[in-house]
């Protein structure tokens, strides 16, 4: 048999002919009353486990779609900008703190999300949820999302290794003291041939944890009114200090592998990184990928720079909001209450993660007051609860991500300065770079601002 166009084309045609009926017979996804977009696999699993119950209770059907965290904000932004409505637009969306700022650029009445102040006040949720956690999801006092979490930050450390080195890390209440103890720890292990044993995980190239430290000092680089705080002298001070944690003779930190959750845990497991900043969402990975670290870890509050600083901070965060063009806002609100604020939602959350809920009354739940064998019997949830009351507000605006990039750049310059000239003049230089960053950011904000 011969075929004029050649065998490959014949083969492709045959494959197409065979698969076409299957493709044509595939049923479209069933339509649901509500569609919710989430970006975290863990959240998707949690919600899926209780959605049937919501449907039974309310008779409202829900379709949950899990999207990639990189793709979702771009898709959503396109939908909002085109004023889309109907089945292409989800009714509810979960947004992450790192990319929520972009949605707040339009004027209040054109933001693609529904203001939730009325919904929140009717049932008193605005008083029952940690107040500071509304900050990232608000613009000019209008709340666009219900917080999923509080994410207080602690430090988790390898107690076994610190004990062996004779270091009591928890007695360090200031960062300076913490650094000193970590240096002693590293010196001990270096003398035993462990050149790659670093006291703590902190990156040189990214400013994420530095932002956490600044928040601890009550500093948002850009606040809710888009005032810039790069010129606060404590920013330069903290950057100069941070640079010395990650570079130079006083270095106590190293980068983790990052990305894959199992990979940074491996560094902790092998004792390459012996402490790490720990918002509650990190615990899940630790327990999932390093079961054999059980009993060898302990958790402590953050050391402070000044006595006025809080012993914690906040890192990361998620909100659930209702899209402005959703036609079933009341049903959508019921779903928010069910997933985020109800007892059923709480139980589901406890099954899949250690993330503390933002509803203060739920902290009394017995599950948050147990000894945790993974942490050698320490009541880590109690520690989180204690710190959660003190977390600083974190504001997010469209300029926040630019500010973060600029801060990373300043860290890079500080590190280069340390490598070339040591600590001499480091803080003055940091002040200068911060001033330049403030000017640059102001220029960008002004350039993007509409005249009316």
């Amino acid at each position: 048999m011969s075929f004029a166009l050649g065998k490959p084309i014949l083969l492709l045609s045959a494959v197409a002919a065979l698969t076409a009926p299957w493709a044509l017979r595939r049923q479209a996804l069933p339509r649901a009353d509500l569609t919710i977009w989430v970006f975290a696999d863990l959240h998707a699993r949690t919600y899926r486990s209780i959605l049937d119950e919501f449907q039974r209770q309310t008779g409202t059907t829900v379709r949950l779609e899990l999207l990639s965290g990189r793709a979702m904000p771009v898709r959503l932004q396109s939908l909002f900008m085109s004023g889309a409505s109907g089945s292409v637009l989800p009714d509810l969306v979960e947004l992450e703190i790192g990319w929520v700022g972009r949605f707040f650029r339009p004027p209040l009445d054109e933001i693609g999300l529904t203001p939730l102040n009325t919904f929140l006040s009717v049932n008193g949720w605005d008083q029952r949820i940690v107040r500071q956690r509304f900050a990232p999801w608000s613009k000019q006092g209008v709340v666009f999302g219900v917080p999923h979490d509080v994410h207080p930050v602690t430090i988790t450390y390898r107690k076994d290794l610190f004990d062996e080195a004779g270091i009591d890390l928890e007695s360090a209440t200031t960062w300076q003291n913490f650094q000193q103890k970590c240096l002693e720890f590293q010196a001990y292990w270096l003398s035993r041939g462990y050149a790659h044993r670093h006291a703590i995980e902190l990156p040189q190239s990214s400013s994420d944890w530095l932002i956490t430290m600044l928040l601890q000092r009550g500093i948002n680089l850009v606040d809710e009114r888009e005032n810039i705080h790069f010129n606060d002298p404590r920013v330069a001070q903290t950057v100069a200090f941070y640079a010395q944690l990650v570079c130079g003779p006083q270095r106590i930190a190293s980068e983790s592998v990052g990305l894959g959750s199992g990979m940074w845990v491996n560094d902790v497991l092998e004792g390459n990184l012996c402490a790490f900043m720990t918002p509650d969402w990190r615990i899940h990975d630790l327990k999932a990928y390093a079961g054999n670290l059980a009993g060898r870890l302990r958790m402590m509050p953050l050391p402070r720079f000044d006595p006025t600083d809080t012993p914690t901070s906040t890192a990361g965060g998620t909100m659930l909001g209702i899209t402005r063009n959703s036609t079933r806002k009341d049903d959508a609100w019921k779903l928010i209450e069910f997933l985020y604020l109800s007892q059923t939602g709480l139980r589901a959350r406890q099954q899949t993660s250690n993330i503390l809920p933002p509803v203060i009354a739920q902290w009394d739940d017995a599950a948050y007051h147990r000894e945790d064998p993974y942490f050698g019997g320490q009541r880590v949830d109690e520690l989180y609860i204690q710190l959660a009351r003190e977390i600083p507000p974190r504001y997010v605006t469209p300029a926040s991500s630019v500010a973060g990039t600029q801060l990373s750049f300043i860290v890079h310059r500080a590190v280069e300065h340390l490598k070339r000239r040591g600590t001499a003049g480091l803080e003055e230089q940091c002040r200068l770079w911060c001033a330049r960053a403030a000017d640059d950011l102001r220029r960008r904000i002004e350039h993007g601002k509409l005249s009316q």
Partner: protein
Amino acid sequence: MTSRRLWAWQARFSPYLFVLPFVILFGMFILYPVARSLMLSFYRSAGVRRSEFIGLENYRFLLGDPQFHLALGNTLLYTALFLSLFIPLSLGLALLLNNRNVRLRNWFRFAFFSTHLVGQVFVAVMFYVMLAPRHGLVNRAIAAVFPWIGSEIYWRANPTLAMPAMVLASLWTSVGYGMIYFLAALQTVDRDLYEAAQVDGAGRWSRFWHVTLPGIRPVLVFLVLVGTIASLQLFELPYVFFDPPSGPGMRALTIVMYLYQHGFEFGNIGYASAVGWVLVLMVFLISMAQLRVSGAIREL
């Protein structure tokens, strides 16, 4: 209508009817967005309905922005580094696998080309793991061969290593693609020319320089052009590979990344459109310059 008139009508309009579907799609998905983005570049926008005409302000801001200069410098450096390695490596590999004495030639050809079948995001994730400090394959190999260097090499955090890491990852995925083109070109070079050159006493280098290179010149020009355009549009690789995506010390901030940050993170679509148009102009000018220098423009 008589059948003659119908045939005349058909003869006159059928070409237009045939191209009509293409014209409609081209208009909808290419021309309109292009024109709209050009228009947007003269506006400042926020949200669906709010925008204001600002003339050339976006372009003025762009040309005076040090961050854009940095992005431009990084992109051009990446392009230069990438092309200077991509072309020789692809050609070298093609010459090697064009040799009849190499065993399992077809298998090697497929193996080298197969890296091109994966997407940039996959490549970025793979190199993320391969270049990871302490655990990464590359770092472990370096530590095994050069123990004094060790395995703590921070490819993603060290500003000096950021660009080499990107180039390395790009080469891994592109060299096989270039090789295939060169292989096809090498097989079109007239064998008689080699024999004639050999009879005239030309050595290997001389044969390569005077017979092979002129023979594959059109493909060479094509690959340089395509490589340049792709390099100027670099985005996914650093976006996934680095955290923050602009890389340590903003060494991985490319023009498209800068565009993305301003358009999608900062939400200034008008400004991002202006960046896009500057990029278009750059690609056009560089491509024209390359065609002119290579003499290929005369053959167009």
